């Protein structure tokens, strides 16, 4: 009987360990490119996930490298390389999301335009 109890407790402990392992795996973070794509969908921007993610990262690199010297140039770059039927607003939303996800350090670039009250 005692042996039976021991076996049952060992089995229960193993089961708990197994459940904890499953639980931990389920809370793994989604990858940022998927989150970025989901954010774009809320703006009505679709298209290949990998392409959009790469474009967002390139937009960030161009800002860091001063290829695009302000947010207007960044927005123009984005507009050139997204679907033509996108609105100007969607292009700016893409840029804003790209900065949020891939280069939050560049928020100042967007804010400079907002403070200037300019429009693309």
């Amino acid at each position, binding site marked *: 009987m005692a042996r039976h109890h021991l076996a049952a407790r060992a089995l229960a402990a193993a089961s708990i360990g197994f459940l904890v392992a499953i639980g931990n795996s389920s809370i793994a973070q989604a990858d940022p490119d998927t989150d970025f794509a989901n954010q774009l969908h809320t703006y009505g921007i679709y298209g290949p996930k990998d*392409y959009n993610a*790469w*474009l967002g990262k*390139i937009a960030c*690199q*161009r800002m860091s*490298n001063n*290829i695009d010297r302000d947010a207007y140039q960044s927005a123009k*770059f984005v507009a*050139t*390389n997204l679907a033509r039927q996108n609105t100007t607003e969607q292009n700016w939303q893409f840029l804003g999301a790209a900065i949020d996800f891939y280069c939050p350090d560049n928020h100042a670039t967007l804010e400079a335009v907002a403070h200037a009250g300019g429009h693309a």
Partner: protein
Amino acid sequence: MTRTGLMAMVCGVVAAALPLAGPASADATDDYPIPHRIIITTCDAEQYLQAARDTSPVYYQRYMIDRNNRPLDVQQQAEDRIHWFFSLDPIARRQYSENTATNVYYENVATHWGNWAKIFFNNKGVVAKATDVCMNYPKGNMQVWDFASNS
């Protein structure tokens, strides 16, 4: 129609079609292997590359990443070779296109790096978009070859 008549007709059709088949031709065309717009553009290599960076950024990145994975001497050979190509007039460029189409060993740089001119030659859409605007970029801007500061 009699069986004999039918056979005669089939033979006639086959006989008419055979001369058209001929051996496959490996000649270049005005768009292959080098797109016509690259043959006639007056931009230099750097103007074109800057334009491609902005109009086909992912394609540019792939090319530059591939380039960065080559030995430095091969990178330099590719750069020198494309400068040479852009120094040619359209007739000579068309001849070069013919030479590379008909002789797989003609282009020596390609034996070291098969895709050495991919961004310049391989995609008509990329070429079309870049040659539309390349004249608006500064000539001879060698900085565009530096991927780290141009991505």
